[in-house]
């Protein structure tokens, strides 16, 4: 915080106040927290709105309409780029009123269809296949065979790691298996092998989550630090004028 213009000063103080107000939630829900949050939501919403307008709606809908002019719009070439989108959007706008909203389903259906397709396609091409292949590649001859001039321990460690990696992937995958057999006691049970795999899988899941959790914790600590330091800076800059 070098020298600040009055506006910046006011802004910075506001920011500091808001920080304190939000952190006050530590004590429990209170009006300062709510005030800060509502203010924040309002600003965030407004900003998101303007962004959407300038980045999508204007270039994608208004601009072509304006630039083409009424005559241009009717050209067949514009059916796809202008007319259909506008029709869809008008349909979507029907959603505003409960009375007409039932007719606004079409654009939603389109959105859902596209979204679902992206989900499926992305998951297959992006995760399922590459990750399976990657899992298969954990043990390659190069991994298995000791490299020239490497200590036996390193080689051993590499093999162990590869095996653990593989085991973790497989057992974790197995754990989530939902279908089971009904046992003699009527409960849903899995075969012995499955149960063993499941338990190992759970251990690996716990470890994975533990690592991620610790990571997130470390990240948020940094953020907490940043907040506190920010407050410190504001206070000090105020004290030093």
């Amino acid at each position, binding site marked *: 915080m070098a020298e600040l213009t009055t506006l910046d000063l006011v802004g910075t103080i506001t920011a500091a106040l808001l920080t304190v107000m939000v952190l006050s939630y530590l004590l429990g829900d209170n009006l300062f927290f709510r005030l800060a949050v509502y203010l924040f939501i309002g600003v965030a919403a407004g900003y998101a709105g*303007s962004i959407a*307008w300038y980045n999508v709606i204007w270039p994608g809908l208004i601009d072509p309409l304006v630039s083409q002019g009424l005559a241009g719009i009717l050209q067949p070439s514009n059916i796809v780029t202008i007319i259909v989108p506008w029709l869809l959007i008008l349909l979507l706008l029907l959603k505003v009123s409960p009375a007409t909203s039932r007719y606004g389903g079409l654009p939603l259906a389109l959105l859902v269809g596209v979204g679902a397709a992206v989900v499926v396609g992305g998951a297959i*091409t992006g995760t399922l296949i590459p990750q399976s292949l990657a899992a298969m590649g954990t043990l390659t001859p190069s991994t298995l065979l000791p490299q020239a001039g490497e200590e036996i321990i390193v080689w051993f460690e590499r093999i162990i790691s590869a095996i653990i990696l593989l085991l973790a992937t497989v057992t974790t995958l197995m754990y989530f298996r939902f279908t089971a057999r009904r046992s003699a006691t009527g409960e849903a049970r899995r075969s012995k092998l499955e149960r063993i795999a499941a338990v190992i899988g759970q251990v690996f899941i716990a470890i994975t989550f533990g690592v991620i959790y610790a990571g997130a914790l470390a990240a948020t600590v940094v953020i907490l630090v940043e907040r506190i330091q920010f407050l410190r800076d504001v206070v000090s800059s105020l004290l030093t004028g």
Partner: protein
Amino acid sequence: MKVRANLVLAATAVGSGIFVLLGYFIDHEVILTLRLILMRWSVLLAAVALFLGLFNLLTVHWSKVSEQEKGWPYSAVLILAFLVTLILGLWFGPDNQTLLMLFNYIQLPVEASLMALLTISLTVAGFRLVSRRRDPFSLIFVVVVMLVLLGTGPWLVASDSDAYILLGQLRNWVAQVWASGGARGILLGVALGAILTGLRVLLAVDRPYGD
């Protein structure tokens, strides 16, 4: 009539979905163009939908204000902030200095502070986990968390001792072998679940867009 409508909706969803989906696998020009078009449309629609969502937000809070419901002043603040920001944004564009300041002095600090709150929430949850969920896995979980934290954070003393380095390496090993393995398993599993969830929609079994 109503039924017909359902069919049109389902057909729309399935149709658009199929083309987008095939685009992932088939390098055919027609499909790719169709897919591109559909995606552009959906991006536009999503943006408009955002506005409708904002409108929804506004109405909900406006009703609170107009009916003087409990806590209506907050809603008033929200509406005010929203309108001011939106008008500024629409008038001067999203990259004007005023908006920049609104962001830097309101949005940024509040979000960061919420994340800071998360630190406490996570720590509390970690503290309570073992006592409230009695299974070996929660124990493993917390132990691993501590191990990784120890391996990540600096030590006050002997931070360049072999022990520290060893722990750091252990942490890396756990994170990069054990956790990666588990993570890959979870990734694959989630992918499986997501694929079938998507397929259910593409088969018009789930029809969230209404019947």
